[in-house]
């Protein structure tokens, strides 16, 4: 009993059950069920197979009281799963009988439900953040404070489960006000400054200890509590000193501009750091930090040098939030690193910290961060008023309100503003002025109002015959699919001139959009949900069993998944690469986990895999394996469900409410593959369990070569050999991947359905099936290249029409 596609929920109206004519075809649904189904599912005096009793449904007046069960019937009819293949002598419907029954069911379902088929999509949090970033050029992710998005079938873009509440509306209003206020320039261009920071320890900076001579004169700020910056713009790092550990933040003679450098060792929480404070004159200012640093091997208690356990990572924090992490290699001389950041605080604090997150016992073996000096410059802006201000109010600060409102509304609403709309917002502006507000405040209010309009918050698509979309609506569909954000100027221009839907132009735009950096949103939002990468942040492996699990590994797991997906898109690789690949992405920490040689540094890079390497493909990625495990052991069931749900988009039904657990192992060790397999034998021996589990377990058992955090372990061949429902044998990971590749077409279908669910913001139903077939036929011709598949998706009628 599988629930394939979702249908309309609200029940209204009735449908008569039997003998209902259907567009010229006469289908006797009752007779169909009596002939092919009742003998196992509700014959009087007989056992009811699978606890699925058709009798109440047959006796009911309409479909409505048992809608859920009718959906199950529709599923098994749609996939020809019932009657089952064994025993072979069961009477089976003909193909046309199947199709007739299916059509009858679809029609009946639609009649039984009065719910809308099409819901208007609202911007979800990620889309809201990106849209604000692109529209107002201010990047502060205001939607992170909104309540969590709800989702369906694995994606938070699905419109049906979106709702709005007074709380959320108020948050929209506050967020809009806040961002517009940050975007709007204050009156005068600020003075930019450049400041350089150097290390000195506490005694030195208070004047107690001597400081050796250098070209940098810090004497004016030494011993003077009030003065922090010299005339020349030189200042000191504020170094946090740990109590009781004199050697933790150690300033020593070195390669900083003032002849010193500071050794920052890793504490696992970024506590060993250098702080820089400055006054930010802008509401929203952009700055550039350049620092010089290198890494040096750590030492054990006896002072002996330790071989590096992992790469040295420097963390840059702005106002307490981690902005970026940089891998600093072992070199003798410092290298220069640059980070640009924004701040909407007036007193801004930037920190450079030794930021490795490996587990406590290995921290000493991570090379220390040796920080030499740093330079901070800003606020940066190309012109005044800055880009964010001009994005709303245009280039001329003295222009009449309609002059800037018209283009702003058009961009915000993603289509040309109407005269009525312009007047409406000009009116707000004027009334605000009349109430005594300053011109700046009046402008801000008008802009804020635009950003709370339903035309901004919702993707409005007009009703037209044949479900046609206009170019603007199509541009929005495209940009929210590939960028999770609004269309850009090029797309708007093409829409304005009616060029966008010309096949050649359309194709060029799709190609361009996929190469734009904004396409990273497809990886983050789509892959993040499709491959459950978002859940990597939530896993909690038992610290006693998995002692080497740390947050560096956690981070690397997620980055591998993202980089792998991105590569397949960027290089237009065939989608079977997801199933089996001769490469992956890794950094030093992940390479240690995978036993891959010669990978240094914390950045992800593409790594080729040898023919005898098991890794390569999503089922071998540690992140996915770890998410689909339990806290203390692997979970072949979860992994099997991953294959069915995420790769083939054919998830098994929910487990029954009352499932007894498997007995756990006594020791503080992970359950071995053999033991687990024995325990799972119940799934096969108990028929109530077997009907689903025979389809789930084999996939997961083949992956038992990987433990609960995705590391490889030695297992006996028998424990990773499993027989699939249809007879195919899987032997371990290799066998599994071969079988997956053999089912490449099914995977392509599953992936396409996922892309459509995400991109259209709705779940699919059997009416969409023909279109999906069409997409796949076209994509097959291009060997299922990922970009080609994406193009086929957006060129399909499903995407181009309502």
């Amino acid at each position, binding site marked *: 009993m599988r629930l394939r596609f979702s249908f309309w929920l609200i029940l209204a109206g009735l449908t008569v059950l039997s003998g209902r004519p259907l567009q010229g075809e006469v289908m006797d649904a009752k007779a169909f069920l009596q002939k092919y189904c009742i003998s196992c599912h509700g014959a009087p005096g007989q056992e009811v197979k699978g606890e699925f009793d058709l009798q109440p449904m047959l006796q009911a007046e309409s479909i409505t009281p048992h809608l859920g069960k009718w959906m199950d019937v529709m599923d098994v009819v749609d996939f020809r799963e019932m009657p089952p293949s064994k025993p072979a002598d069961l009477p089976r419907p003909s193909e046309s009988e199947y199709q007739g029954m299916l059509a009858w069911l679809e029609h009946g379902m639609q009649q039984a439900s009065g719910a809308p088929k099409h819901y*208007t999509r609202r911007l979800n949090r990620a889309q809201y953040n990106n849209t604000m970033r692109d529209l107002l050029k201010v990047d502060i992710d205001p939607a992170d404070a909104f309540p969590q998005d*709800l989702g369906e079938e694995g994606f938070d873009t699905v419109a049906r489960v979106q709702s709005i509440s007074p709380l959320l509306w108020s948050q929209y209003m506050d967020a809009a006000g806040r961002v517009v206020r940050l975007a709007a320039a204050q009156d005068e261009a600020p003075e930019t400054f450049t400041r350089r920071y150097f290390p000195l320890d506490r005694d030195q900076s208070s004047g107690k200890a001597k400081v050796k001579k250098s070209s940098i004169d810090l004497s004016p700020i030494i011993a003077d509590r009030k003065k922090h910056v010299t005339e020349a713009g030189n200042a000191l790092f504020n170094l946090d000193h740990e109590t009781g550990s004199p050697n933790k933040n150690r300033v020593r003679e070195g390669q900083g501009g003032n002849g010193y450098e500071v050794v920052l060792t890793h504490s696992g929480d970024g506590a060993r750091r250098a702080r820089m404070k400055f006054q930010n004159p802008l509401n929203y200012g952009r700055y550039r930090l350049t620092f010089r640093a290198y890494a040096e091997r750590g030492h054990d208690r006896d002072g002996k040098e330790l071989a590096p356990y992992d790469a040295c990572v420097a963390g840059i924090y702005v106002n307490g939030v981690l902005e970026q992490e940089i891998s600093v290699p072992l070199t003798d001389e410092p290298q220069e690193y640059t980070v640009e950041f924004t701040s909407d605080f007036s007193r801004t604090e930037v920190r450079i910290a030794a930021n490795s997150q490996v587990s406590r016992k290995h921290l000493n073996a991570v090379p220390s961060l040796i920080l030499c000096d740093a330079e901070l410059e800003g606020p940066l802006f190309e012109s005044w008023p800055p880009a964010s201000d001009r994005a709303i109010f245009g280039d001329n600060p003295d222009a009449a309100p309609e002059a800037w409102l018209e283009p702003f509304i058009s961009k915000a609403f993603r289509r040309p503003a109407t005269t*009525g709309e312009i007047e409406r917002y000009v009116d707000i502006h004027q009334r605000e002025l009349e109430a005594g507000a300053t011109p700046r405040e009046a402008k801000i209010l008008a802009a804020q109002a635009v950003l709370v309009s339903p035309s901004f918050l919702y993707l*409005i698509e007009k009703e037209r015959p044949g479900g046609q979309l206009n170019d603007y609506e199509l541009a929005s569909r495209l940009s929210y699919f590939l960028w999770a954000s609004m269309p850009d100027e090029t797309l708007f221009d093409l829409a304005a001139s009616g060029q966008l839907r010309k096949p050649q132009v359309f194709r060029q735009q799709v190609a361009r959009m996929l190469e734009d950096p904004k396409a990273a949103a497809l990886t983050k939002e789509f892959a993040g949900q499709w491959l*459950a990468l978002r859940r990597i942040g939530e896993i909690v492996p038992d*610290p006693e069993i998995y002692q080497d699990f740390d947050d560096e590994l956690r981070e690397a797991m997620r980055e591998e998944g993202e980089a792998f997906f991105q590569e397949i898109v960027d290089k237009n690789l065939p989608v079977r690469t997801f199933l089996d690949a001769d490469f992956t992405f890794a950094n030093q920490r992940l390479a240690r986990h995978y036993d891959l040689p010669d990978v240094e540094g914390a950045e992800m890079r593409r790594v080729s895999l040898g023919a005898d390497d098991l890794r390569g493909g999503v089922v071998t990625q540690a992140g996915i394996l770890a998410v689909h495990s*339990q806290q203390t052991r692997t979970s072949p069931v979860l992994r099997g469900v991953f294959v069915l749900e995420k790769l083939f988009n054919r998830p098994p039904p*929910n487990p029954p409410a009352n499932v007894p657990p498997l007995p756990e192992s006594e020791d503080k060790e992970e359950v071995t593959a053999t033991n687990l397999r024995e325990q799972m034998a119940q799934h096969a021996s108990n028929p109530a369990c077997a009907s689903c589990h025979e389809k789930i377990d084999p996939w997961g058992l083949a992956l038992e070569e990987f433990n609960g955090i995705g590391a490889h372990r030695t297992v006996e061949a028998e424990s990773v050999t499993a027989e699939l429902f249809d007879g195919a044998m899987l032997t371990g990971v290799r066998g599994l991947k071969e079988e997956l590749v053999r089912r490449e077409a099914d995977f392509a279908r599953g992936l396409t359905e996922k892309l459509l669910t995400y991109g259209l913001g709705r779940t699919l139903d059997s009416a969409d099936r023909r279109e999906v077939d069409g997409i796949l036929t076209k994509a097959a011709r291009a060997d299922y290249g990922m970009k080609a598949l994406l193009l086929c998706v957006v060129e399909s009628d499903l995407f181009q029409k309502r």
Partner: protein
Amino acid sequence: MKAPLSRRTVLRGMSATLALPFLDAMTPLSALARTGRFSRAPLRSVFVGLGGGVWAGEDGFFPWKSAMDVERAKVWGKKGVLPGGALADTGRQWKLTNTLEPLANVRDQITLLSGLHNPNDSIRNPVVNAHGQDLGTLLTATDISGTQGVALKNGVSFDQVLARKIGHQTRIPSLALTVGRSSYNNREATGLGYMGFLSYDFNGNAVPTEGDPQRLFDRLFTDGSEEDQAQREQRRRRKASILDAVKEDLHQLNGMVGHDDRQRLDEYFTTVREVEQRAERAKQWDDIPINLPEDAERPEKVDRGAYGKTGEGRVEEMRQMLDVLTLALQTDMTRVASLRLGGYHGQFAFLGFPEDPHGNYAHNNGDPKKVAGARAIDRMHMEQFAYFLEKMASIQETDGSLLDNSLVMYGAGLTNGPKPQVRGDEIGYNAHGQANAPLLLAGKAGGRLQAGEHVNYDHGTPLSNLFVTMAGLNGLSDFQFVDSTGPLNGLAVS
């Protein structure tokens, strides 16, 4: 009559001010007259839910007078016989079980309610199984068997009905809170996600929950506190301007879009109207100070997520949220709140039980070692609940403590314990049963509920009858909710 304070200020750390929030002198006569309250502190109704069920077997949520018994089990559901055949230890002398022990100091405030259930939960359907019901139907009592595997389309929940009736008396009609995130099965949770939303609006949509104590604190107590009269006027005028423009936009759009799309826009319009109404009502609070107590602290930012490697971080998060909720009730910000306190998810290694909580401790099948895990988890949650109750009990109001003046429902939608049906001569265990819901009430409803008792109900008594009782205590007579048949009998209600 004293002139009410003229500034809407948040009084913090000022020893000269009265640290006691709800005092008659602070409230303008007109507001008092409107609400009809002259000598009583208002009644607060709180609904605390635990996801994934609660162990109701031996030494669990309900105290037993005698142990399980196969023969008695066959006649469960009447005369105090619980599923599995144990006898409910009813009355006032009930023994504290392992799970209930944390309530020792406030037991005279506790009313245990065994035997209730939501009849609609039992409707057989393979689509929305118990996992999909969980907290989702606890306050709605609705039949969701027709929904797709996600109970996101529901009926309205009782707390929202209550909020609609009495919410206009407070600054905020109601709060819907969670610790961490509210879980639900969107298929991303791969089939085992529980339904973690308690509150549903009148359209049956889940009410979005607030899960960040710091942000909640700011929203309730800090935002806008520094305004003066002129600034407040300005803010209101601007908001009204915006709302007018939005309504005109909606009007224009309605002509353009199809019938189906209009549903969403209608919801938007309803929301905007609600915002307008609240803005109107907010005016009456202008001159009433919030009176945050001296020791009120803005919660620290906690790193959300996995609660630390051994899971111990969740205790701090729960307490933070309970603290802010207490402040909200204490200052009469709201009188209706729902809170998803916790559940069987994540890591419980800090209790000595590191395995997957759902698969092992929820689905324990009666295995003693695993049952120990379930008890430990339930007790840990109960400890936080006791923390909350003791805090409320220590806050004095006009008459009685904040707890005296409240009704706090605590429990779960799922019962983890002995199966009602006896097969052969064996008592089995059901992880997610829907009979004998684990429920208790805390508080005395302003003295109108004589607490301290364990009352047992025959199977078949709808849980919604509890809501009829609660509605009655809130001054709503002739109240009916979904399948209710009247108030709960056997409760000493005056």
